[in-house]
C-alpha cells in the first residue's frame, strides 16, 4: 500500500521512459537492483532511445577555424547543446579531447574530425603527396568520455569518406574513393574473433556512387551516376538502398552536384536543391516512404536582402555568380557566393548562415562558412548495464 515497490515493472518502465534524460535514467538504475534490471533490459533501452533520441545528444564537436595570423587551424572544440540535460561541467571539459594532443601522435593543427557516431569521433589527417592518387590517410577513433583513442591505418591509398559504426563489437566502417570516383567499402574491427586489428574489404556496390550528398544520424547519401537516383547507406548495417530524386527539382546542374542532404530538426533527411536564380528547394520524404515531396521553397534574395554586403546580382541568375551550399548542422546551412570575372578569378566571396526552419540569416566569414560544420555527439547507447544479481 502506498509504496513505489508495489508498482509493477511495466508501469515503472513508463515512469523511466518519461525521465527523458539518459543521465537521470542512469541515476535511477543506480538506486537498486530491481530498477537496474528493468532499465538494463535491451528492449527498454532501445525504446528509451527512440522516445528520447533528442536527449541523447550532448552537443557538437567543431573543427577549429583557420587562424590567418599564425597560418594554423585552431584545435577542435566541444560546444554543449543548450537543451542538453546531461550533467556537463560548465566549460564542457568532460568532453575535452585534449588528451589527444598530449602524446604527439595527433597534431591538432593537421587532424580534422571527419565523423561522429555513437559516442565516438573519427579523426583523419590527410597527407597530400605529390601524386594525388596516393593520398596517405591515417585515422584515429576517439572516445572522448573514456579519454581513449586508437590509431588505425586504412587499407590502401584512397581517400576516405569515413563513417563509424558502433554496435558491439565496435567497428569502423570506411567508404573510400579514389580520384576516379571508384568507391570501395572497408571495415576495421576491434573484435579478435572477427579478425580484429586489421581492415577487411566488404562487398559494396559502389559502381553507381558518384558524389557524396550528406549524412544524417542513420544514413549516408550519395548522388548516383546518371543523375536520376541516389544511394543511401545505413550507418549501422552498411546496407545500401536506392532512392529516386525529387521529380520536380529543376536542376541547374544536370549532374546534380547542387543537391545536398541535410538532417531536419526531426533528424530525418531533407534534400536541398539549389536552383537557378537563388531558389533553394527543400524536399522531405513522407513518413512511410514514397516520393520526395516539396517542403519549402526559399528565395535566397528574400532571406539575405538585409545582410551587410548583399548585392541583388548574387541571386539574379547571372552566369558569373556561383552559389553553393554547405550543410553545417541539422536544418542549418551556409550559403556561399562567389563572383568571377571573365579572367575567371574568384572574387569577393560572401557567405551567410541560414536556418532552414526559421529562415533566419546571419552573415558569416567565408572561412567559417566552409569549416563551421557540427559533428553532433550522442552519449554511447545502450549504456553498459550488466545484470547484477
Amino acid at each position, binding site marked *: *500500500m*502506498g*509504496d*513505489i*515497490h*508495489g*508498482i*509493477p515493472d511495466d*508501469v515503472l518502465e*513508463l*515512469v*523511466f*521512459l*518519461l*525521465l*527523458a*534524460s*539518459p*543521465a*537521470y*535514467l*542512469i*541515476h*535511477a*538504475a*543506480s*538506486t*537498486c*537492483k530491481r*530498477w537496474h534490471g528493468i532499465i538494463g533490459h535491451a528492449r527498454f533501452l532501445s*525504446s528509451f532511445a*527512440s*522516445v528520447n533520441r533528442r536527449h541523447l545528444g*550532448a552537443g557538437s564537436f567543431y573543427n577549429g577555424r583557420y587562424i590567418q595570423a599564425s597560418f594554423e587551424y585552431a584545435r577542435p572544440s566541444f560546444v554543449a547543446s543548450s537543451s542538453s540535460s*546531461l*550533467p556537463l*561541467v560548465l566549460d564542457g571539459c*568532460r568532453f575535452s579531447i585534449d588528451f589527444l594532443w598530449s602524446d604527439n601522435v595527433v597534431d591538432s593543427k593537421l587532424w580534422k574530425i571527419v565523423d561522429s557516431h555513437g559516442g565516438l569521433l573519427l579523426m583523419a589527417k590527410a597527407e597530400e603527396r605529390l601524386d594525388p592518387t596516393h593520398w596517405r590517410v591515417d585515422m584515429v577513433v576517439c572516445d572522448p*568520455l573514456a579519454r581513449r583513442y586508437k590509431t588505425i591505418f586504412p587499407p590502401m591509398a584512397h581517400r576516405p569518406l569515413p563513417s563509424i559504426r558502433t554496435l558491439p563489437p565496435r567497428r569502423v566502417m570506411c567508404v573510400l574513393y579514389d580520384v576516379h570516383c571508384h568507391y570501395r567499402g572497408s571495415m576495421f574491427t576491434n573484435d579478435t574473433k572477427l579478425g580484429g586489428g586489421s581492415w577487411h574489404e566488404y562487398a559494396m556496390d559502389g559502381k553507381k556512387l558518384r558524389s557524396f550528398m550528406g549524412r544524417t544520424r542513420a544514413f549516408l547519401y550519395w548522388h548516383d551516376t546518371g543523375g536520376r537516383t541516389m544511394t543511401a547507406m545505413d550507418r549501422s548495417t552498411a546496407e545500401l538502398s536506392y532512392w529516386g530524386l525529387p521529380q520536380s527539382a529543376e536542376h541547374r546542374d544536370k549532374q546534380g552536384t547542387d543537391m545536398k542532404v541535410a538532417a531536419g530538426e526531426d533528424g530525418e533527411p531533407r534534400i536541398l536543391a539549389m536552383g537557378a536564380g537563388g531558389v533553394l528547394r527543400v524536399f522531405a520524404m513522407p513518413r512511410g516512404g514514397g516520393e520526395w515531396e516539396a517542403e519549402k521553397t526559399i528565395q535566397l534574395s528574400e532571406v539575405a536582402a538585409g545582410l551587410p554586403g548583399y548585392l541583388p546580382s548574387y541571386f539574379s541568375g547571372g552566369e558569373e555568380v556561383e552559389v553553393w551550399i554547405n550543410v553545417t548542422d541539422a536544418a542549418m546551412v551556409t550559403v556561399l557566393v562567389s563572383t568571377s570575372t571573365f579572367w575567371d578569378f574568384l572574387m569577393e566571396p560572401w557567405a551567410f548562415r541560414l536556418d532552414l526552419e526559421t529562415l533566419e540569416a546571419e552573415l558569416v566569414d567565408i572561412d567559417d562558412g566552409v569549416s563551421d560544420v557540427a559533428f553532433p555527439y550522442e*552519449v554511447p547507447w545502450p*549504456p*553498459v548495464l550488466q545484470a*547484477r544479481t
Partner: protein
Amino acid sequence: MEVDKGKGEAEETRKVAEADRDTVTLKSSDGKLFEVSKEAAARLSTVLAGMIAGGSIDDNGTDLKQIGSEALENVVDYCNKHANSIPSAALISSSISFNTAPFKEPEEWERKFVDRLSHDALFDLVEAANFLGMERLLDVTCHKISEMMKGKSPDQIREVFNIKNDYTKEELEEIRQELAWAFYDD
C-alpha cells in the same frame, strides 16, 4: 452535475437504482461506494468500459477489490474533473505506448490534481489507474513520479522513494566508473 463523493452510503445509492442511470456505482476494497459519470468512466477506463458494455456493472456497487477508498475517490474525482474540463479528443489517444504517439504534457488541472496528493496516495493511484486501464491517468501519475526523480542523485532518489540500497560499495563504484558521463563530479 455534482457527484457525491466519499460519503456515498448504501441506502443513498439504492434510491437512485433506476435502470437507465447515467452514473455507475463503484465499491472500494473497504466497502465504500462512489458514483461516477458512466460516460466519463467508459471513456477514460478500458476496464470500466468493458464492464459497462458487458453488463457486469452492479447497481448496488461494482466491486473493485484491488482499490482502496482513498485511491478510488481520486479515480472518481479525476473522471469528474476530466468530464468537466474542456473535452480534448487528443488526450484519449495520447498514451505513451512504446514507439507510438508521443506523450502529451499534463494539462494545468491535471498537474494540480496530482500535485496535491501525498506520495502514498500517488502510488496507490498509479496502481488503480493501471488496474482500471486508465491510460491518460497512468501517464499523468507516472509523469509526476518521473518529475520527482529528475535531477536527483541516486541517494536522493532512494530517500524520496524510500528505497533500500541493495548494492555493495564495489558494485556502485563499478557503475559510476562505467557510466561516468551520467554523474556530476562531486
